[in-house]
Structures are given as C-alpha cells and as structure tokens.
C-alpha cells in the first residue's frame, strides 16, 4: 500500500518535470517561426538551414553603452544571413578588456580607449587587435528639474564641486572658494549638495574624470584619476537618474542617452570647457562635432588573429561599418551617429587590419 502510493508520487513528480521541460521544448521550436513572421528583423534564427549564410559564431563583450549597438547590428545581420550565431554582453568596458585580453572574446566594446595596463595585458597574451571608432556619446551633467539656481558649469566649477579637493562639501556654496581660485565667476547657491553618479568600475566615470578633471587636478597636484569619494555611486544608470530627480538641488552625471530618455525627471546643465567660457547644451549636433565638451567616442576592439581565422567575425565587422547599418540601429537606440567621413576612415582602418 505504502509502496504504491510513494511510487505513484515519484512518478507524478517526475512527470511534472517532464511536462515543464516539454513546455520549454515546444516554445523553443515554435519561437523561430513566430518571431520570423512577427518580426522579420529580430534575427535569432540560428540552427536553421544554412542558406547563403555565414556559418560560425562570434562573442562580443564590453561596454554596456555600446552593447545595444553591437546587439542591434548582430540581429540585423542574423536576419539577413542564416546560420550566423552571436552573443553580445555588456558587463562594462574594463571587464570586457579583461576577457578580451584573455582571448575569451572576439570583439570588445569600449566607451573609452584601451588603457596602457590593459594593452600590456593583451600584449603579454600575444593578442593583437584593431581599434575602430563607431559612434559618439556625450555625458550629461544633471540636476533636478526644480533647481533653477544653476544653468551652466565650467570644468573648473565641476572640479570644485566633484573633484578630489571637494571631499566633505555639503553645500554648493562650499565649493565657491576653489572655483574662485580657478578663476570662475559662477555663483553657487547656498543649498544642500547631493551628488549621484556612476561608480569607479564604469567607463562613464573614467571618461568624466579624464575629460573634465585631469588637466586641473594635475595642475593642482591632485590625483588625476578620481572624484571625491563621498558621493552616492550606482552601477545602474536609471538609479542615478532617480537619485538626481529625488533631491531638489542634486548634481550628477550619466550617459547622454539616459538623460535624453528622462527629460521629464531631470534637467541637463550646460557645460563650458574653459573658465567662464561658452556654455553648450548636449544634443546630437554638439556631441558629433565635439563642441559639447563632455563628448567621447565609442569603439570596437577586434581581435585580428581571430578575425582572420573566423569568417563570421569579418562578415560582422564588414556589415557593422557599412553605410546605414549603425544609423539604422541608432533609430531605436539613443546614441549619436558618426559623420560619413569618420565612418569611412574607420572602414579604412578595418580594411588595413584584416
């Protein structure tokens, strides 16, 4: 009696698992067909018959900023060429270079140039690569929509507020003495200063410090690679936006794309490169022509030895750099397109390397 009951139970439990597995299975087989009819460009038809396709797979990792572009290009290529398999992940520029230089990935996305120590890591492992510029991104300096006291900040002002010497400043006005010493006439409000930004592991942190602080910090004999340590750091850009929106006199910075998507919550502060210089607001045009001072380039780093051995990699990069590919992806992903001439220069660099 007992025996049969328990046996039936085990069978039932196992049956449930099989059903659960089978459910997964059936949705698996139905997926490519339905996605192909519902969304022809959505890609992901790996495993289908190889019609005029590329057989092979690529692994792309690196910057979370570049990830949507690389993924979009891969989807579009997979939709056109059967048999093309891809994986695109976005753990961050630094983590991306670590795996790239260990030979685990084929292409590394980066929101800054490779650092000397990372280049050395690649050289030690004998990994050769080519650097390809593929788009522009800006960094927006943000405050709450309720903050009307500040409309424009120069690099000197930003340094006075967020740089290594500002540690402990609890009010905007605390930064006035450093700003004045740097020659700035900006009036700082007597209001609480809460700073929210990306953490040190982020490429956006590195770029911001490099572009805005490096020259001033070096001249003032400070560490040129850091901000003040006492600010709220987050790895999630949407959390940074929420933090900035949550305090009336906040200050923070994120990638331009995140600021543009949240204009109802936060306002962008104009930025001037020079002390008391021209204030420029970030938009597609000012970022692309470099007149917005906090703009940076986005890169692909391609492992050239792997690209020669695996036709899928060259096909992917070729397609990436074709006129219209990136701009098509950028219709749904908010970054800034390269001018045609710059893209052509990137193509030349790629042609020379492959």
């Amino acid at each position, binding site marked *: 009696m007992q025996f049969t009951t328990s046996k039936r139970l085990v069978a039932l439990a196992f049956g449930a698992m099989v059903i659960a597995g089978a459910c997964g299975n059936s949705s698996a087989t139905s*997926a490519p067909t339905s*996605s192909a009819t519902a969304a022809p460009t*959505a890609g*992901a038809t*790996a495993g289908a018959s190889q019609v005029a396709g590329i057989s092979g*797979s690529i692994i792309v990792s690196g910057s979370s900023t570049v990830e949507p572009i690389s*993924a979009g290009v891969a989807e579009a290529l*997979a939709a056109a060429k059967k048999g093309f*398999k891809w994986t695109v992940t976005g753990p961050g520029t630094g983590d991306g270079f670590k795996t790239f230089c260990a030979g685990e990935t084929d292409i590394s996305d980066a929101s800054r140039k490779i650092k000397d120590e990372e280049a050395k890591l690649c050289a030690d492992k004998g990994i050769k690569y080519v650097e390809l510029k593929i788009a522009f991104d800006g960094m927006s300096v943000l405050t709450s929509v309720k903050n009307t006291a500040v409309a424009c900040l120069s690099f000197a002002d930003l340094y006075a507020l967020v740089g290594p010497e500002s540690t402990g400043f609890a009010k905007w006005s605390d930064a006035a003495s450093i700003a004045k010493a740097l020659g700035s006439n900006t009036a700082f409000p007597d209001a609480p200063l809460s700073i929210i930004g990306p953490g040190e592991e982020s490429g956006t942190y590195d770029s911001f410090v490099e572009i805005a602080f490096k020259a001033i910090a070096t001249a003032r004999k400070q560490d040129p690679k850091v901000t003040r340590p006492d600010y709220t750091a987050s790895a999630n850009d949407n959390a940074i936006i929420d933090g900035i929106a949550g305090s009336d006199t906040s200050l923070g910075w994120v990638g331009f794309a995140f600021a543009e998507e949240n204009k109802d919550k936060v306002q962008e502060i104009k930025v001037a490169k020079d002390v008391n210089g021209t204030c420029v607001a970030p938009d597609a045009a000012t970022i692309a022509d470099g007149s917005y001072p906090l703009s940076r380039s986005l890169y692909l780093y391609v492992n050239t030895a792997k690209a020669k051995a695996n036709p899928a990699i060259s096909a992917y990069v070729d397609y990436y750099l074709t006129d219209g590919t990136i701009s098509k992806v950028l219709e749904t992903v908010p970054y800034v397109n390269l001018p045609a001439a710059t893209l052509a220069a990137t193509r030349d660099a790629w042609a020379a390397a492959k």
Partner: protein
Amino acid sequence: MSTIASSAGATQASVRAALTGKHRDTAGTVFQVALLASLLFSLAVLLVLVVDVLSKATPVFAERGVAFLTSPLSSNPAKAGVVQGIVGTAVLALIVAVVAIPIGLATAIYLEEYAGDTRFTRFVQVNIRNLAGVPSVVYGLLGLSVFVALANSLDGAGNGRNILAGGATLAVLVLPIVVITSIEALRAVPNSIREAGYGVGASQWEVIRKLILPSAMPGILTGVVLALSRALGETAPLVLAGAVLGSFSGLSLESLFSGSYTALPMIVYDWSRKPQEAFREDAAAAIVVLLAITLFANGIAILLRNRSEKAW
C-alpha cells in the same frame, strides 16, 4: 499568601468583568490592532508592488500578446521577448531538481535515520544551517571556480560558461534548504510509526521506504518547492557562473554544453538598466512571466502535497 490571594482576586475580577462584558482590555486591544496593522502593512507593500508591475506590464501584453513570450532578446524594446529566458529558467529548474533533490534527500535521511546523535552529526547539521544563510553571490564564486572550470575541462573548447555549470551552481545554492526542510519533515514523523514498523519485523530500509518517507513527503515537497522558487529568482550566482547579461542568438536549450544561456531574472536585471523607458515596461512584463512560472511550480507542489498528505 497575600499576593496569591490578591492575584486570585484580580483574576476573579477580570473573569467576572469579561463575562459581564463591562471590562475593557486596553492592552489587549492595542496589541490586536498592532498585529492587524502589521498584516495590513505587508499586504499594502505587496499590493503596491503587484499593481505597479501589472500596470507597467499590461500595455506590453496588450500590444505584443504571445509574441512577447516567443520572441528572442533584442536591442529594440519593441521587439524584445523572453523566450530564451523561459527556456533557460525551465532548464535550470530541471537541473536543480535533478541534482539537489536526490542529494539533499539522501543527506537528510542519513543524518536523521542512520547517523546517531553524535557530536560530529550535530557539527555537520549546524554547518548545513549556516550554509543556508550564506549570500548567494558566494555560491556564484564557487560556481565560477569549480563548475565553470569543470565544464571548461569537459568541453575542451573554453565554453565552460554553459547552462550545466549555472544549474549546478544553483543546485548547490539550494541544497542546504532541501536538507534542512527534509530533516525537519523526517523529524516530525512520530516515533510510534518507526516502532510499529520494527514491531512487525520490518528492516530499517523497509521502515524508511514504506513508512517514514511517505509520511514525511508533504514536508519534503514543501521544502523542495521553497528551494526551487529560490533558485528560479536568483541573479547574482548566474552572473558569475556565466549567464549572458545581454543578448544572443538561438535558445538556451540548443547547445547545453557550448552555448550562451540566460534566465528570466537576468533579463529583468538587464532590461532595468537600459536607457529606454520602454525596456522598463518589458522588464515588468518579464517579472509577470517569472511570477506566473513560480506560481505554476508552487501550484504543482501544493497539489502533490495534498495528494500525499495522510492522517495517522
């Protein structure tokens, strides 16, 4: 003497007051209201969460319908779907069940039925309880250094970050929960059952198989469900054990040993950090799918539990 007399008098008074309905038990009322307030607070938090998620998810399901469930990951929020996450989560659950349930149950039976109550077994039990409280990211590190490396050496092509390594990591993560709940369930079986079994000449193996396990089954199943639900919701260990935080072609099932895989919580985490507002709605919809799967798993377990429940 006098205190006893007076306290007896007080009891008498309060009983009389309660019986005649004249006494107001202020402290009791306050306590009851506080309990009710606690209940309402946790309910309100849950309600806010569910309403928030559902209100964001509704437009996605209304617009996309089944396509959201059958589309692969995409950088375009209007096309992105969760099929790879559903498959990945289902396969991970299967691996966890196949690995963690037998090992966990066997450990529990040995500790509770065979091993005596020695200093050693008590030491082992305390440690298992401690393991259940270790942060999940620590298990992720274990998965990275043990299972991913193991899968790497098996595969030979450097594709160790596969779904088997991820599933094994999650299985180890929930193993202590399975062991502890199974031990509690076995302990709850009345000793008279065992003695009755031995009394009619059954061996220890027969007593365990035919008497103790069936009667402990409801408790064991509850533990297994709790463990599976925990595994289905984990992100941190999977990030380390190689689940893709991004997108990829194909399905998790296609190449268990060499391919990329993801799970629903990973997709939720990934989408919530994207710039486009539309991805936040997609993330809410993915949460609804994950909730539905967890409820489904719980439902099956409750069904199994009710079938196996018996009164002695």
